[in-house]
C-alpha cells in the first residue's frame, strides 16, 4: 500500500515533460480510434448492405467474411498483418502519408495496425447495423412497398435512417471498445500511450539514455495511463446512455431494449458481437 501511494513513486508525474509525453501518446490512441472508426463505419455499412442482399452468393460471402473477422482475436489480425503485409503497401504508406498526421502515425506498421482495427471493427459494426436494420418493424418495409417506393428509395429514406439511428448507442459502445483496442498497436511498436509508458519506465532516471534523475515506476505510470482511458471512455459511455434514452423516448421503446436487447448490450460492449 505504501508503495502505491508513496510520493516518491509519483514524482515523475510532474518532472520534466513526462506527463506530457504520456498525454501525447494518449492523443495518438484517440486519433487512431477516430480514423479506424470512420473507416470501419464506412466499410461496415457496405458489408451490412451486402449481407442483406437478395443475391445469395453475395449475401453468403458477406456473412462469411463478417463471421470470420468477428471471431478472430484482434491482436492476432494486427500481428499477422504486421508480419505479412507486402512491401509495396508498407512503403507506399511510408512515402505518401499525409503530412498533417503526427510522426507516430506515419510509420510503416501503422497501416497494419489500422487495417487490423478496421477489418475487425467493420465486421462487428456490420453485424450491429444488420441487426439494427432487421429490428425495424416489418410494417415499415411493407408500408414503404405499399407506397410504391423502390428498394433503393426504401433503403435510403425509410429503412436506413431509422435502422442506423437505432444502432447509434451500440456504435458508441463499440467506439469505447475501439479506444481500448488501440492500445494493442503498442505491441507493433507504434508510439501510443502504453508504449510511451513503457519507454518512460525504462528511461526515466537513467542518465545513460538522457532520462534525468527521477525514476518512473511502472505501476504508477500504468495507473496514470489507465486513468486516462477510464476517464475518456466513461465520458463516452455517458454519451451513449443519453443517446439510448433519447432514442427510446423517440421510438417508444423501453430503454435497455435496444439493438440486441439489454443484456445483449453488455455482450456488445465486451467486444463480442
Amino acid at each position: 500500500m505504501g508503495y502505491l501511494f508513496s510520493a516518491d513513486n509519483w514524482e515523475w508525474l510532474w518532472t520534466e515533460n513526462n506527463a506530457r509525453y504520456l498525454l501525447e501518446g494518449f492523443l495518438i490512441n484517440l486519433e487512431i480510434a477516430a480514423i479506424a472508426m470512420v473507416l470501419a463505419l464506412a466499410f461496415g455499412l457496405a458489408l451490412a448492405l451486402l449481407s442483406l442482399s437478395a443475391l445469395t452468393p453475395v449475401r453468403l460471402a458477406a456473412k462469411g467474411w463478417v463471421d470470420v473477422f468477428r471471431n478472430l482475436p484482434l491482436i492476432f489480425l494486427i500481428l499477422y498483418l504486421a508480419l505479412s503485409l507486402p512491401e509495396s503497401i508498407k512503403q507506399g504508406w511510408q512515402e505518401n502519408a499525409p503530412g498533417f498526421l503526427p510522426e507516430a502515425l506515419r510509420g510503416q506498421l501503422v497501416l497494419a495496425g489500422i487495417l487490423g482495427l478496421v477489418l475487425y471493427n467493420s465486421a462487428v459494426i456490420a453485424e450491429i447495423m444488420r441487426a439494427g436494420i432487421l429490428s425495424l418493424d416489418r410494417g415499415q418495409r411493407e408500408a414503404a412497398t405499399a407506397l410504391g417506393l423502390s428498394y433503393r428509395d426504401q433503403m435510403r429514406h425509410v429503412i436506413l435512417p431509422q435502422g442506423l439511428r437505432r444502432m447509434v448507442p451500440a456504435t458508441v459502445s463499440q467506439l469505447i471498445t475501439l479506444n481500448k483496442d488501440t492500445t494493442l498497436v503498442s505491441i507493433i511498436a507504434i508510439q501510443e500511450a502504453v508504449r510511451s509508458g513503457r519507454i518512460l519506465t525504462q528511461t526515466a532516471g537513467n542518465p545513460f539514455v538522457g532520462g534525468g534523475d527521477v525514476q518512473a515506476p511502472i505501476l504508477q505510470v500504468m495507473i496514470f495511463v489507465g486513468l486516462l482511458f477510464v476517464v475518456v471512455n466513461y465520458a463516452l459511455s455517458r454519451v451513449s446512455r443519453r443517446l439510448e434514452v433519447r432514442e427510446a423516448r423517440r421510438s417508444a421503446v423501453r430503454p435497455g431494449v435496444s439493438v440486441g436487447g439489454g443484456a445483449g448490450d453488455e455482450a456488445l460492449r465486451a467486444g463480442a458481437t
Partner: protein
Amino acid sequence: MFDVLTEHFDEFASGFWVTTRLVAASFVIALVLGTVVAALRVAPSRWAQRLGGLYVEVFRNLPLLVLLFISFAGLRRAGVGIGPWTAGIASLGIYTSAYVAEALRSGVSAVSRGQREAALSLGFTPLQTLREVVLPQAFRTVIPPLGSIAIAMIKNSAIVGASLLALPDLLKQARVVNSNTFQTTESFFWAAVGYMLLTLTATVVFRTLESRYAVRR
C-alpha cells in the same frame, strides 16, 4: 500448408492447451466475481451499489493490456510475488467479470417486478428473493449474452499471450512457428483454426444451454 501443421503440431497443440486453460479459469473467475458485483449493484444498500458501480465502470473502460501491466509488472515491482499465470487469469477474469456483472444486472432488472413483489409478500426476505427467485430467472435470460462474453474473452486471451507475461499461448506459438519456418500465413492460419475451434465450442455450448433453459414466456 499442411506440413507446417504436422511438423510443428506440438507447438500448436501446447499453445492451444495453454489458451484453453487460461480461458476456462478466467471464465470461472469472471462468473464468480461478476455475480458478486451484480449482487452489490442490486443490493438495497447505497454504498454497495456505488462500490459495484465503481468496479464496473473502472474495468469496463480500462484496456486489458494496461490492466495486465498493472497486475503483473506493477504488482511485482511493489513487492507482490504474483506469477504470470495468476496475473493473466486474474486480469482476464476481473476484466470480463465487469461485463458479466452488467449482463446479470440487466437480466435481473428484466425479471418482472411482479415476481419480486410476489416473493416479498410470500414472506421471503430481500436476500432470499434475490437468491431463490430473481437470480435463477435472471441467469436464464442472460445465457445468450454470457455466450457472447465468453467468445469475447477467448479473443481477449490472445492479448494476455502477447503481453509481457510471456505465457506460451496459441498466438505466441504461431509466432514461434513462424520464426522457425518463415511461413507466416500458414503458421497463423493454423492458429486461427485453433481459435475458431474454441469460439465454435463456446457457441455450441451456449446454444445448448439456451435451448435447455429457454425462458418460457
